[in-house]
């Protein structure tokens, strides 16, 4: 399990993230919300070891994150960045297959896993195509399939960190992608996901963390966090919050 206590990140003397105490629990999807510059990506970078905390500590299971060896850590923790800069004509399944690098499961098992991950991210039909020939949204889904393959099939003890995995997707694929991520968590993995769409967050996340200027403003279930006055304070946006007519989850409507 990935957890952190009183995490603080300073950049050039300026505190960009502070007082974050968090655990990403097995089987749950934890959404991170906040306006631009609130420290969402900084939090993710600190949680995956890319940024060294200037205060506090990040733990993966019972060991400090920095003490893990590369491959062992990669078997437990996968990270999907906001954008990727792959400029070589790998085939789609080769890109997804890179997710199997930390494992020694053998070629046959890897091929099965790659196939299942391609299906989960709905990019199975792109197999055989060159990555460079894909659209932005297709590339994003291919990278999602890659990090899914890295932890496939997903179980207790594994953590997936996702930075806006739906930013380039059409409405249908925003939902199919989050359903796939939801299913992944239901198999036991812990998922932390940065989202901008409040309604997607309300519908697919178990808990939400609302960040404001680098500090947690609220942490709890969507009903508790998505309150009109909170959202007004953090985003400066006037909203109505109503229950979804069919699903009952909160639905946020700008006024």
């Amino acid at each position, binding site marked *: 399990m990935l957890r952190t206590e009183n995490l603080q990140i300073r950049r050039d003397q300026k505190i960009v993230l502070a007082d974050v105490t968090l655990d990403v629990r097995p089987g749950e999807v934890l959404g991170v919300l906040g306006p631009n510059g609130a420290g969402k990506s900084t939090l993710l970078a600190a949680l995956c070891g890319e940024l060294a905390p200037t205060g506090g500590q990040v733990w993966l299971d019972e060991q400090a994150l920095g003490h893990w060896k590369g491959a062992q*850590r*990669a078997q437990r923790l996968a990270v999907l960045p906001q954008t*990727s800069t*792959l400029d070589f004509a*790998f085939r789609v399944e*080769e890109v997804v297959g*890179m997710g199997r690098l930390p494992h020694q499961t053998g070629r046959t098992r890897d091929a099965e896993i790659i196939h299942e991950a391609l299906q989960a991210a709905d990019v199975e039909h792109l197999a055989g195509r*060159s990555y460079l020939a894909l659209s932005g949204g297709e590339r994003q889904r291919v990278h999602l399939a890659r990090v899914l393959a890295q932890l496939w099939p997903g179980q207790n003890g594994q953590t997936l960190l996702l930075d806006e995995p739906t930013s380039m997707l059409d409405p249908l694929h925003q939902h199919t992608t989050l359903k796939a991520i939801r299913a992944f968590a239901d198999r036991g993995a812990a998922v932390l996901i940065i989202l901008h769409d409040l309604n997607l967050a309300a519908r697919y996340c178990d808990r939400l963390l609302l960040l404001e200027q680098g500090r947690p403003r609220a942490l709890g279930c969507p009903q508790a966090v998505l309150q009109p006055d909170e959202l007004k304070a953090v985003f400066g946006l006037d909203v109505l919050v109503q229950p979804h007519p069919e699903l009952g989850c909160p639905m946020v409507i700008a006024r």
Partner: protein
Amino acid sequence: MRTLVKPRSLFIGLSALCLLSIWLSLALGPVSLPLFDTLRAALRLVGVPIAGEGLEQAELILGQIRLPRTLLGLAVGGVLALSGVAMQGLFRNPLADPGLVGVSSGAALGAAIAIVGGAAFGGLPEFFGPYLLSLCAFLGGLGVTALVYRLGRRNGQTNVAVMLLAGIALTALAGSAVGLFTYLADDATLRTLTFWNLGSLNGASYARLWPLLIVTAGVALWLPRRAKALNALLLGESEASHLGIDVEGLKRELVFCTALGVGAAVAAAGMIGFIGLVVPHLVRLLAGPDHRVLLPASVLAGATLLLFADLIARLALAPAELPIGIVTAFLGAPFFLYLLMRGRH
């Protein structure tokens, strides 16, 4: 999508071409030997017991001149192509060149110091001169690359963009130093310097060959072990580290292998451009970017291409000989432009 060549067919094709280039490289030159005699003499040289009447001259030419030259071409071409793959992986850019980290310009500076400095002390001793030149070129390449690498490091991390810019700056600096030595040189030294800068496989000898062969074999055996890590590196440095790759270690290995490989190649044969750029590109067009295929295939393709370039250098103005750097640049530069233009669409 265009189907790629299967790795198996690629290796068979490249091996055949490579053997053909070796055969032609052994047979053709100012004194052309009959192809069949060349084959028999070459087989005798490697210890196959066949009758050797009438092959004395062929064996002499082969053993003393053509074989070391061919081996030199194979090693230089192979190691330059490998270094190109390493640099394109390091910079995650298919248009990167081994020269980017300053190894070529450093080697040129080392060579200029040896040639002009040696001449200032009344000429280098006959038996020692060539070795001193190679050694200075090798150390110059290694030294400048080490400096570029140091400049690119900050807080224990290597920033390849800073390395790239530091490489450009140090290349310019080394270029100005070479210019100064050129200015100071007398006519004879100037000629040596100029020809060295154009590169040549001429005058290959076994003594100068061994260090390069050892370095080439080392790099050619080492880099393929890191093929999967190189694939992951193309995703991005942080992505690779999330896949469990020791990215800093990998970058260090890539820079070290390139400095060693290009340094040794330039020390043995002078400046030969474009092989490191063009060969990995050609192989990628044929077989895709997977380093598990790309690395070994580039060795074969680089070796083959350099031998064919050397054949052109030998035969185009026979009995005079063109510097091979002219040939590779003449073929390579338009190809590079073609890639650049193609990439725009």
